[in-house]
């Protein structure tokens, strides 16, 4: 690789190591695996950087995150890692529309514990859009680049992910003490 190209790589891609690590960490649930994945993904990124034509810094982020996401998938397959839900299917996971639910008190400690649990149990396809949108604050367009799906799919998947979390939280609230 030409040194100018290497410098471009360092300017466009390396600033996004934090974002890469954040995604890997929340997709794997493990700091050591996340580090291995990000290192692996960075080398893949370097290898394929010649084909990357972006110039905006944000484009470097989406591009690197897409590689991290794919690296997580490959790594799971290699290790026969069973994700929370390996039989994800858009239709099967379509949920009825849940109304806005003020009864779910998100600031209660018990609710937060359930939220953590619910996040951990989300299928990968839901968790990745939640992490990309709510944690890393990517635009729908950027998320669509990362996961390789149309923006419409991103939006509907995000919506269903939130509905699922909401239902899990609401169920818990009603099962426990009454909070209204």
């Amino acid at each position, binding site marked *: 690789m030409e040194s100018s190209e290497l410098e471009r790589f360092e300017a466009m891609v390396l600033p996004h*190591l934090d974002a890469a690590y954040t995604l890997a960490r929340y997709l794997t649930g493990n700091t050591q695996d996340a580090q291995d994945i990000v290192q692996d993904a960075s*080398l893949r990124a370097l290898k394929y950087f010649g084909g990357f034509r972006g110039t905006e810094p944000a484009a470097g982020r989406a591009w690197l995150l897409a590689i991290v996401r794919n690296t997580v998938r490959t790594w799971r397959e290699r290790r026969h890692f069973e994700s929370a839900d390996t039989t994800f299917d858009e239709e099967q996971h379509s949920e009825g529309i849940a109304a806005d639910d003020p009864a779910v008190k998100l600031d209660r400690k018990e609710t937060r514990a359930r939220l953590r649990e619910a996040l951990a149990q989300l299928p990968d396809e839901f968790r990745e859009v939640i992490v990309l949108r709510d944690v890393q604050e990517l635009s729908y367009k950027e998320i669509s680049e990362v996961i390789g799906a149309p923006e419409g799919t991103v939006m509907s998947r995000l919506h269903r992910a939130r509905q699922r979390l909401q239902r899990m939280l609401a169920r818990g609230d009603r099962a426990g003490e009454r909070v209204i």
Partner: protein
Amino acid sequence: MSETDFERRLSAAIREEMPPLRAPEELRQRVRAAINNAATPKRWAWEGRPFPTRWLALAASLALVALGATAGWQVAARRAAGGALADEVLASHVRSLMPGHLTDVLSSDQHTVKPWFNGKVDFSPPVSDFAANGYPLIGGRLDYVAGRPIAALVYGRRKHLINVLLWPAAGSSAVRMETRQGYHMLHWTAAGYTYWVVSDLGVAELQELTQLVRSAGS
């Protein structure tokens, strides 16, 4: 699809439970090492070796630069003077290394970086790219130091980053050095601006960049 109030609250709660993370330093080093190994030799291979000739040549040229400039620079580790300001400058540098804080405008083109400051600060900072000298301009950002909005220019040097903070000031002063927590800071006032150059690089390289900035600004 507009977000409901619940969705907004949920997003905020999720972000609190799963905050954006900073890559561990160990990982950064591993990635850099891996990239250096993977990159083809030529310009980059020599960096990993202990004492190749290029280093010696560089060291020699820097020694000459340092020798010639000693009188003008009066570099001395003065902790007392400008102590609080040095702390602010260091804070700005360290903050800039946190995720997403390095640059507001990412460009190696001085003609992009300079106009970017228009309307953001009440002065037009001199901006130069020193890529030809081994200090490529990476970008710029706004910061707040010494009780005023200031311009920060970011330069690269091998795997290191250098912040050059500047704001208008009258008078002139020789280059002085402060050291805090292993970071060296060179600062001076000349040609209408106070400059602070800060990095984890060695003093010799900071002096070299300082010399470049001073020649470009005069």
